[in-house]
């Protein structure tokens, strides 16, 4: 960040250019310029605090209140947490959410990594820009349109089934294509791949070809180059990508409604029901807070894993 030190430099040099160096007035000017910088940030930060941070705090505070039908009342209680923690349904939904999220995240990274590698080192300039352009363009395609695409592809009368029947590979439509956690994960991968490719491409860009060439010249085969050069340098961005795909997929409630059916139900739907169908606000908020804690734990574990495997502090040599 070259620009971050600009003001300090300017303030430090100001007294020297003035005739008599008055440190006091320089200090005041420094203060004034800092105050005006705060003023610039004020609308955004205040807006975020009032319109996002406070609502989030209120929302999570709700989980400690006593549920009333579509309302809350005062005595603070852990009732909602104990209820959620002891419910076998919540347990099952949590497992499905984790499984779906992990499947989607693993597949996304597994597909995005070779694509990014190809884009970075193997593609010709023309193919590279065509593929990058297409991927970036698909980033703009609406979430609901993608969801709908998979719905019409995988439905019992959908394109895949009717196509397979038409070609004669199967006689009866396969019902199992839809309504489990697999189609939810597939749609999530479809949504996440463009983000993942762009994030990993940005991370791979500073990794100069000469590193790979010198590894090659030193006798490393392609597996060793992946293992010793590329993966350590990409471990942190890969972990971040994995985490965010996991987060977005496992907390989703729209995709499982359409693609998940009964077997693919996830925690997000439960929260939705608690708020809109049952009217148990603390119950929904408690679930959300518990999910947030789990996300925090998973994130911390990933960071720990990176540290233990000693790849966290790898620096780019550019």
């Amino acid at each position, binding site marked *: 960040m*070259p*620009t971050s*030190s*600009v*003001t300090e*430099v*300017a303030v430090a040099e100001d007294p020297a250019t003035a005739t008599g160096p008055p440190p006091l007035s320089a200090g005041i000017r420094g203060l004034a310029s*800092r105050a005006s*910088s*705060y003023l*610039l940030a004020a609308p*955004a*930060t205040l*807006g*975020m605090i009032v319109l*996002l*941070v*406070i*609502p*989030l705090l209120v*929302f*999570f505070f709700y989980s400690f209140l006593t549920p009333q039908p579509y309302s809350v009342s005062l005595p603070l209680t852990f009732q909602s947490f104990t209820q959620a923690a002891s419910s076998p349904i919540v347990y099952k939904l949590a497992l499905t959410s984790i499984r779906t999220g992990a499947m989607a995240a693993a597949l996304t990274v597994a*597909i*995005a990594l*070779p*694509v990014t590698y190809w*884009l970075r080192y193997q593609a010709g300039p023309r193919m590279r820009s065509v*593929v990058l*352009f297409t991927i970036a*363009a*698909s*980033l*703009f395609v*609406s*979430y*609901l*349109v*993608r*969801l*709908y*695409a*998979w719905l*019409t*592809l995988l*439905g019992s009368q*959908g394109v895949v*089934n*009717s196509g397979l029947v*038409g070609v004669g590979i199967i006689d009866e439509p396969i019902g199992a294509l839809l309504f489990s956690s697999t189609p939810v994960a597939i749609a999530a991968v479809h949504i996440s*791949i463009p983000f993942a490719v762009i994030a990993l491409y940005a991370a791979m*860009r*500073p990794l100069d070809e000469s590193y790979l060439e010198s590894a090659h010249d030193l006798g490393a085969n392609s597996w060793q180059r992946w293992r010793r050069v590329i993966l350590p340098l990409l471990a942190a961005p890969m972990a971040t990508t994995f985490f965010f795909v996991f*987060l*977005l997929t496992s907390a*989703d409630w*729209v995709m499982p409604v359409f693609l998940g059916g009964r077997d693919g139900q996830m925690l997000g739907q439960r*929260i939705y029901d608690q*708020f809109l169908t049952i009217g148990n606000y603390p119950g929904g908020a408690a679930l*959300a807070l518990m999910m*947030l804690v789990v996300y925090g734990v998973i994130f911390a574990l990933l960071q720990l894993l990176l540290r233990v495997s000693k790849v966290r502090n790898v620096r780019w040599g550019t």
Partner: protein
Amino acid sequence: MTFVAMIFLLVPLAVVVLFSFHATDSLSLPFEGFSLRWYEVILTDPQFRGAILYTLRVAGTAVLIVVPIGTLAAYSLTLLRKRSANVVRLLIFLPFVFPLLFIGLSMRTVYVYLGIPLQFGTIVVGHCIFVLPYFVLIVSQALSRLDPNVLEAARTLGASPVRVFSKVVLPQVLPVIIVAAVLCVALSIDEFAITYWVAGPDQTVPMFLFGLIRRVVSPSINAASTALMVLSLIMFAGCAVALRRTLRPARAAAPSVNEKEWT
């Protein structure tokens, strides 16, 4: 692998487009001929037209609010000391780390508690919060690419901070601001996860689509989806053209681009 991935990315979308031209109302193979009837159905639907207008109004209002606020915030990040800048950054990028379901629900909870009716304004607030981090991320990348020597020269020549900003900084990053604004419009048009919770009686296009998909599966939804995709692609093309024009000289001047570590 890339080829397979591209097929995986594009074929489902191509199928949606293909069946929007289907002559019959079935969504299964074999394909039975082309027709534009579903476009007629959807484009003459007053609800869909209303949703499009409403969506554009929401997106336009949100972006008009986010552009000045976000630009100032991004500029302040370059002026503030590291620690304060990190606090500001943390607040602005907060929507990235929370599932959108939680954000939408928490807003709804507070509005319901305060008795604020869910309406146009509540959607706009939700969209502003949602797009602001993207806007600030892009604009501060552009700001970090500015030559600090030029800014310092302006200062030592006696330009006031306001003048430095308006005469030196702003002209250089204006194209990027426009690109970021278009991206925010696109994001706002597609936003569903927050909108669902803070919307009043009027529907945005994604809400309209959601309602349709929930009830039936019909080529008219394919037509609406295709229309939405075309709209997104137009915006993407606009972004891409503008970015190409602006980034070329910048890249030539500064070959090493800082990778921001914001996550």
